[in-house]
């Protein structure tokens, strides 16, 4: 995570279907272009998917490259379980941020 002061909050979709995942990618790219960090509000994710987690992880790398902040707020049990199932639990731990 970078040290930028400004960040936007994006609410992650409940379902990681292709349409919502594509929309998330677009939104992340827009924030990236604007030089804004992001918080992904992950409390409502009920049916995560590999595509959703790939997008989150690719986003994390892109924001880190530009030293912009990137974090997950209150990931739901479903999202935590999905990260763990994919073998990405350590990555998840490094993404979780607390709301201030």
């Amino acid at each position, binding site marked *: 995570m970078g040290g930028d002061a400004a960040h936007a909050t994006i609410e992650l979709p409940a379902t990681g279907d*292709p349409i919502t*995942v*594509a929309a998330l*990618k677009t939104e*992340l*790219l827009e924030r*990236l272009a604007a030089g804004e960090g992001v918080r992904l509000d992950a409390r409502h994710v009920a049916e*995560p*998917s*590999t*595509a*959703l*987690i*790939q*997008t989150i*992880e*690719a*986003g994390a*790398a*892109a924001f880190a490259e530009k030293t912009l902040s990137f974090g997950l707020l209150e990931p739901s049990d479903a999202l935590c379980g*999905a990260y763990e*199932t*994919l*073998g*990405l639990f350590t990555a998840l731990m490094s993404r979780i941020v607390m709301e201030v």
Partner: protein
Amino acid sequence: MNAEDQELRQIFLLECEELVTLAESSVETLRTAPTEDAIHALFRAVHSVKGGAGAFGLDRLASFAHVFETYMDLLRKGKATLDDAAVDLLFDGVDVLRQLSDEARDGEKASTQRYDAALEALRAAAGLEDDVAAKPPPADFDPMAEFEAQMAAAPAADEAPRRKFKIRFVPGPKMLEAGIDPLRILGVLKSLGDLQVEIAGQLPSLVDLDAQICAWSWTGTLETAAPQADLDDVRDMIDDLAVLEFEGEAPPPAPEPEKPATAATTAPAPKKHGAAPIAEPAKPRDKPVATVRVDVPKLERLGNMVGELIITQAFLARQASGLDPEAHRPLFRALDEMGQHIREVADAATSIRA
């Protein structure tokens, strides 16, 4: 089709001939002394033909192999009886596979009479409606949902001995598009026992990411008491959309085989602290070509894996054909190199099986 695709297609057609020959041999075994191994070998051969034919746009071959494979699936699960009539049907099916394979190679369309008759008979035996294959799935089709419910409903096998498998799971490029999410496949495996996986693979940058193509793969272990049929069901669910391997726990080392009689005539090596005699290594110039014994199924698996590589290479080449070679020079160079390596692997695998 560019020259490289054409070459890959030729390699597949050679592979296809071998698979059909293997299928013929399996059917012959089923006629004389039926074994489960022969049924599985025939299923795998037909399955591989289907996958490759689909990737190279050989629609008649792919469609026929699909129906054939569906019938074979019933046989291997004991849901259809392997009697004389079934064996005759399998022979007819393999004959038509050969005919279609020749047709694809020679470009001359063969008579459709046998094709139609065998296809109709296999469809009837497999319980397929005429238009099942042609019907597109509904928009909200979730192929995983029914499967997950079926696996969850399977009786627990707590009393059965637990076995530990090494697993390797490599999703193919069309897996997500087909509605099969690797996350859910791993979830099903997790429900079968203790699953420990490590993830590998490099995600593209966010800009380049196509989230509907899984960039990751997994290796790890699965310790489970689930019956083999459950593992087979997971593999069947994936079909040819991914590679999913279960490698059984290595058995304890076998006792040292007795030295061949000729060894007794050679001078014994000096003993070291009471250890077993160690034969003096031969000088390099005297050393014969080293050989190892490999189970035929392992060689078949190698062949199948090479086939999968060729299919994936063809897919990648097709995807890349729409890109500007100048703008994506490193990608095209990597594709060229990969194609070269795959051809070498295919040649080596073919020479092993010869």
